[in-house]
């Protein structure tokens, strides 16, 4: 019962949030709606029994990525004059009717194919008895230290690379 309620709340958040991310005219609003969507996805993780992932989603996205995005918007978005020295509008449009039409056509194209594949898959899919919800922290920990230890270590190198690279790119320069 609670699972279903949680699922519906979460999917409402996901669908509504994602729709608003697509449609909202204000980038700041889009970012906040993205936050809601991410909360929704965290809720969906909970319904799937992935408690650790749900929390990780909150920690990394709500705490990190969204704030990063907000900072990025603040660093680039707000300015008084609408044109820069190249004569281009500084605050880019959030899309026009034309681009939305292109997007819609692409989506229709993909939807016809992918939904067909999903439907086909679901037709052949037999739901078996689902296992009990198990806590995942210990299993993830064990898995990270045994099967996926290489990925664990490499991810640290990835993060190091991202840190150094991004810091180098974004570092304020004098000129």
């Amino acid at each position: 019962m609670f699972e279903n309620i949680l699922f519906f709340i979460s999917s409402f958040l996901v669908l509504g949030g994602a729709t608003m991310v697509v449609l909202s005219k204000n980038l700041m609003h889009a970012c906040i709606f993205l936050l809601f969507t991410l909360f929704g996805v965290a809720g969906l993780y909970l319904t799937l029994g992935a408690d650790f992932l749900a929390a990780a989603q909150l920690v990394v996205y709500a705490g990190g990525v969204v704030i990063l995005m907000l900072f990025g918007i603040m660093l680039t978005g707000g300015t008084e004059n609408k044109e820069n020295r190249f004569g281009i509008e500084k605050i880019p449009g959030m899309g026009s009717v034309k681009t939305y039409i292109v997007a819609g056509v692409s989506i229709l194209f993909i939807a016809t194919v992918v939904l067909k594949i999903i439907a086909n898959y679901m037709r052949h899919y037999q739901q078996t008895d689902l296992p009990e919800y198990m806590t995942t922290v210990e299993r993830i920990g064990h898995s990270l230290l045994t099967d996926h230890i290489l990925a664990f270590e490499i991810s640290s190198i990835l993060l190091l690379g991202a840190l150094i690279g991004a810091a180098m790119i974004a570092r304020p320069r004098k000129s």
Partner: protein
Amino acid sequence: MSSTNLDVFMPVIILIALAIIMFVGAIGVVGKLLRPHKPTPLKETPYECGEAPVGSAWSNFNVRFYVVSLIFIIFDVEGALMFPVAAVFKDFVAIGAGGVVLGSLLLFILILASGLVYCWKKGDLDWVKSFQLSEDQLKKLNEVEAR
């Protein structure tokens, strides 16, 4: 490994719902009935210590905020990866595989700490970059002061 019923997450939802109810109730329902509503243009200008505000506040910001949040997010992700490992560390020590786990954990931390060291060396962690004055500049400064 214990099995969980999802019901344990119910309080979270209830608490958030309560927060929303409280917010809406206090601002949208009760407050609306009780509080006055007499907007004037002056009241609705942003407060700037009595001066009339010039322009919008939404202007470009210093990139230092971004660099800080960038370093943060990397460490945040590191934390997210290290939590489950830390949680099972004791089990591994108990079965005698602690050495390997300790090694990999230390490697993980050290690799990321080297990123911190890099940023430190390059001055990304300095909020205000200190500029060393050259000797000529110091001389000029002293001359100016002497005058």
